[in-house]
């Protein structure tokens, strides 16, 4: 797989405060890469650096395998973006806004017709954008980002301000982009559910540092499953299991064990029963992506 975006130790200081710290990002072709992190984690700053809007304090950016600094125009030609809130000229109509972007990107007229169709703004194209609803502005922003049918699409919080119907619509649109137009998507969100539903790869950022990066399924696998045991005498059971080489931890009224195979669980059960201990409950607890996310980001916060 070809890397579309690679950063090396990308760092940004603002007045001595480190907003993005030594980020090594890897986005591969055909992916929908979800950039996840709490508000103020450095997501926007990082995406802006990828577009040259913010100048890195240190580190390197390569997009399409080319150094950004030296190939700015080439990279931007093949990159569409929607950063922060949508950009628009309020006194102009939706169509005129697209025409401006058409001049800047030198694309044919048919692209305008097509993107208007994709974001379903054909009926409103002659209306002044100042009179658009937030959702319509957001859709216009996506249309502008798509106008040149770029190889890479960078979207910062793309479903911000949309109603549930609109969110669903945009989500389906984004999911279809890699397959239909060969567009690699890099999007950010502070909402886990959104990333969970759209992304194929995930990068988790907190306080400017990348805590996890990889395929979404890897992250899910990474989620340790716990087994909770409840017995007639937890202390006795704990001692017994420790002797057998397990590491049970007392957790409220239960014992918690991590990373067990099914066979091990069966063996533990047998041991306890043979020792004449009542086994009341064996429960499996599966951590959701949300738990992992919270755990990762919280740990980070505690360190500070």
């Amino acid at each position, binding site marked *: 797989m070809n890397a579309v975006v690679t950063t090396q130790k990308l760092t940004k200081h603002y007045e001595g405060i480190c907003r993005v710290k030594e980020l090594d990002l890897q986005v591969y072709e055909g992916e929908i890469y979800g950039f996840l992190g709490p508000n103020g984690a450095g997501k926007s700053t990082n995406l*802006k650096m990828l*577009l*040259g*809007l*913010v*100048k890195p304090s240190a580190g390197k950016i390569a997009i399409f395998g080319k150094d950004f600094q030296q190939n*700015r*125009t*080439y990279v*931007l*030609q093949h*990159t569409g*973006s929607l*950063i*922060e*809130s*949508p*950009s*628009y*000229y*309020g*006194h*102009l109509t939706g169509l*005129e806004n697209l*025409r*401006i*972007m058409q*001049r*800047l*990107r*030198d694309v044919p007229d048919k692209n305008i017709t097509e993107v208007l169709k994709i974001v379903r703004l054909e009926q409103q194209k002659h209306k*002044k954008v100042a009179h658009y609803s937030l959702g319509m502005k957001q859709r216009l922003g996506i249309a*502008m980002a798509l106008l040149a049918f770029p190889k890479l699409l960078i979207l910062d919080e793309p479903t911000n301000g949309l109603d549930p119907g609109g969110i669903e619509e945009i989500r389906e649109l984004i999911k279809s982009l890699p397959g239909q137009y060969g567009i690699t998507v890099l999007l950010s969100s502070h909402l886990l559910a959104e990333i969970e539903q759209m992304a194929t790869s995930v990068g988790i950022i907190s306080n400017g540092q990348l805590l996890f990066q990889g395929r979404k399924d890897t992250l899910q696998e990474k989620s340790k499953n716990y087994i909770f045991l409840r017995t007639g005498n937890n202390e006795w059971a704990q001692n017994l299991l420790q002797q057998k080489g397990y590491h049970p931890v007392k957790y409220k009224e239960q014992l918690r064990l991590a990373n067990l195979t099914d066979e091990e669980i069966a063996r533990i059960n047998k041991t306890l029963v043979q020792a004449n201990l009542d086994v009341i409950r064996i429960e499996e607890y599966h951590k959701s992506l949300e738990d992992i996310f919270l755990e990762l980001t919280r740990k980070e916060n505690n360190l500070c």
Partner: protein
Amino acid sequence: MLKRSIAAEGLKLRHSRIWLILFVLPSLSILIGCANYYLNQGVLHQEWYSLWTQVSLFYGEFFLPILIAICCSYLCRLEHQNHNWNSLMAAPISPAHVFLAKLAVLGILLFFVQIFFLLLYYGAGKLLQLSSPFPLETLGWIFKGWLACITIASIQLGLSLRIRSFATPIGICLCAVFMGLGMYLLKLGMFFPYSLLTIGMGILQQKCIMGSENLLFIIMNLLFTILFSFISIYRLKNTDITA
């Protein structure tokens, strides 16, 4: 690429009220200037030249610099509003072209303003029944005034790019014009960009600057325009965009 950027800048001015200002401010200058001329005919004997002293004073020392500053602030406000810097600077356009396209559009607008002012001056002279022939020096003043306009525009554009407020750069411009008058009187006008308008348009002295002085005037305009454009482009290239 620059042509496309200029076309895009042109599109942004559609449905815009900036056109109103382009017509109103020169008209106001002519109106006030003519009224002054009409009321002081006792001391103003030189017909076209006397009329020029009156109209160009209000135009060149007040309304035109304000007009330039307003246009610059307006062109930048379009981008300051609604996060447009993000999409403009993430387009495959070099920062130099972003700046130069705006300066070019200003140059075109100001050219039409100068022509419009010339027509108004001619019309006003005819209305006041001036009998002497129309002085051809005016064409030179209009053209040289236009050069000075571009110089001032290159500075004002830089200020407006930097200062998000609409009015502050206009205030700075007014102060600079008054300073320019002082510099002109101190005979340092050639070295202060805001005085160039006074010199170029023959506002205070209706002699047509000649030969070497003409050359110096053009060179100084070029130098200032290049210098201030370079500063703005450098800044646009090297600082973070805040939209």
